[in-house]
C-alpha cells in the first residue's frame, strides 16, 4: 500500500473506530486516575456554589435546615458528596437538620447520609439535632401539605417516633418555618420545590443537581428563586474546598478532568479525520 492510499485508509478506520475501543480507552484512563493519588486541586468556587455556602454560613445557631436528599445509587457519585458537604457544614454550625426524600431508591442514601455525619459529630443527637423523615411518594401533594402542616403528613419519623414530640422539630410546623431547604436531585424535582414550595411559602431554597440538568436552573438563579446551586462533582469539590475538608468530590476531580480531556481529544480527532478525508 502506498503512502497516498495509506492515509485515507487510516482516516477511514479512525472514523469507523469500534466503539468498544473507545470504552476500553475510557476505562483505562479512568482506572489510572482512580488508582493514582489525587494531584489537581479544586479551582476557585463558582458564585453559585459560594451562594449556597453563604446561605448555610449566615444561619444563626439552632436554625432549621431541611435537606431533601433524593439521591439514588446511580447519581450518588455526583450528589452524595454535595449532600455530605452541606450536611457536615450544617452539623458544624450547630444547625438542626431534617432529611427527607421522595424516591424509593433514595431511602438508603438518605439514611446513610445522616448516619455518616452523625458518626462524625457524636455530640449531635438523633431526635434532638437531626431527624430522618420517612418515604413519601407524591411530590405535589407532599409539598402542598407541608406548606400548611408538616405533621398532618409526617406524623412519625423514620424510626416510628412521633415527629411532633422530637426536640429537633421545635418551632417548626410548616414549610414557612424552615430557615433553609437544600434539595439534591437528578430530576426536575427542584422545579416542583420552586413552584410549589419556596415561591408559595417564602423560605430560602438552594439546590444540588447533577451536571446533566444544571443548565435548566440558570433562570431560577438569575431571578433569585434559588439561593444558590451546586452542580455535579465539580460543584461538590468546590463546596468541600470552601469548607476546608477535601472529600470524595475533590478526589474525583482528577478522574473527571482526564476523562473530559480524553472525550475532547476523541471528538477533535474524529472531526479532523472527517475533514481531512474530504480534502483527500
Amino acid at each position: 500500500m502506498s503512502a497516498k492510499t495509506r492515509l485515507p485508509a487510516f482516516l477511514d478506520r479512525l472514523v469507523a473506530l469500534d466503539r468498544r475501543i473507545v470504552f476500553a480507552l475510557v476505562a483505562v484512563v479512568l482506572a489510572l486516575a482512580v488508582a493514582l493519588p489525587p494531584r489537581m486541586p479544586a479551582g476557585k468556587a463558582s458564585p453559585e456554589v459560594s451562594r449556597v455556602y453563604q446561605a448555610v454560613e449566615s444561619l444563626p445557631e439552632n436554625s432549621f435546615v431541611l435537606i431533601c436528599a433524593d439521591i439514588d445509587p446511580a447519581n450518588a457519585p455526583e450528589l452524595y458528596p454535595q449532600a455530605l458537604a452541606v450536611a457536615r457544614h450544617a452539623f458544624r454550625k450547630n444547625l438542626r437538620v431534617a432529611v427527607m426524600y421522595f424516591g424509593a431508591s433514595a431511602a438508603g442514601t438518605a439514611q446513610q447520609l445522616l448516619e455518616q455525619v452523625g458518626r462524625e459529630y457524636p455530640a449531635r443527637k438523633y431526635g434532638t439535632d437531626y431527624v430522618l423523615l420517612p418515604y413519601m411518594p407524591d411530590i405535589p401533594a407532599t409539598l402542598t401539605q407541608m406548606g400548611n402542616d408538616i405533621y398532618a403528613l409526617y406524623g412519625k419519623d423514620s424510626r416510628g417516633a412521633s415527629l411532633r414530640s422530637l426536640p429537633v422539630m421545635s418551632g417548626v410546623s410548616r414549610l414557612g418555618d424552615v430557615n433553609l431547604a437544600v434539595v439534591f436531585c437528578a430530576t426536575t424535582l427542584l422545579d416542583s420545590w420552586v413552584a410549589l414550595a419556596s415561591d408559595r411559602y417564602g423560605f430560602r431554597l438552594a439546590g444540588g443537581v447533577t451536571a446533566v440538568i444544571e443548565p435548566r436552573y440558570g433562570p431560577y438563579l438569575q431571578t433569585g428563586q434559588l439561593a444558590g446551586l451546586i452542580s455535579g462533582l465539580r460543584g461538590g469539590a468546590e463546596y468541600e474546598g470552601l469548607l476546608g475538608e477535601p472529600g470524595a468530590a475533590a478526589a474525583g476531580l482528577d478522574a473527571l478532568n482526564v476523562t473530559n480531556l480524553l472525550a475532547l481529544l476523541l471528538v477533535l480527532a474524529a472531526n479532523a479525520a472527517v475533514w481531512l478525508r474530504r480534502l483527500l
Partner: protein
Amino acid sequence: MTADLSLLSGAWVCAGLTICLYSFLYRDNPLFKIAEHLYLGAGMGWLFQLTLFNVWKLKIFEPLAGGDMSPVLPALLGLSLVAQRWRRFAWISRYGFAFLMGYGAGLAIPTSIASNFMAQLQGTVEPFLPGSAAYSSFTALFNAVFLAAGFLCVLSRFFFTFGKGGMGKASAAGGYILMLYFGASFGSAVAGRFSMLYGRFAQLHEYSGPQYLYAVPVLLLGAALFFLYTRLRAGSSKKTGRAS
C-alpha cells in the same frame, strides 16, 4: 484485615453486579441479563415494601384501625385505578383519574404561571430598572443584556409568520443561542456520565483490596473466563455445523 461478613458479601454482590452490567459494553450476554433482571426484581420488591409499610400501613391501615374514617375516600379513589385491569369494570377507574387530573391541573397551572412565567419575565426586566444591581458592574450589565437579548431572539425563533428583515435576523440569532444551550447541555451530560462512571470505578477500586478478598480482580477474571468459554464454545459449534 478482612471486612465483616455482611460488608464482604455486600462488596462481592455490588462488584459482581457492576461488572455484569458493564459487560454489556462488550456485547449482550447472560451475565448482563441476570444483573438486569435482578435489578428490576429487587427494585420492584423494595418499592412494594416501602409503599406497603410507609404509605398503606401508616396512612390507611393505622388510622382506620384507630377509628379515623378520613382515609376511606382517598383509598377508594386510589383502588379505583386498579379497575382498569378488567374491561368490564374499567369505567370505575375514571373517578380516580378524574380526581388526579383535576387536582394535578389545578395545582400545576397557577403555580407554573407564577413561578415559571411571571417570575421569569420579571427577572428578565428587573435588571434594567433604575437602581438595579446590574448597573454595579460591567459583567452584571452584560449578563442582563445578553439574557434579555437571548430571550427575545429565542422567542422570535418561534414566530413562524414573520421570517424576513430584522425578525429573520433575530430568529437566526435565536437559533444560535439555542444551539449554544444544547451544546452546553450535552457537554454537561457527558461530564455527568463520566462522574457516574468515576463513582463506580472508585467503588470497584475500593473492593479490589485484600480486606474484600480481592473481589474485583477475582470477579473480572471470572467474567473474562466466561467470555472465553462462550467464544470457544461458539467457535466449536460453528465448526461442527460446517462439518455436518
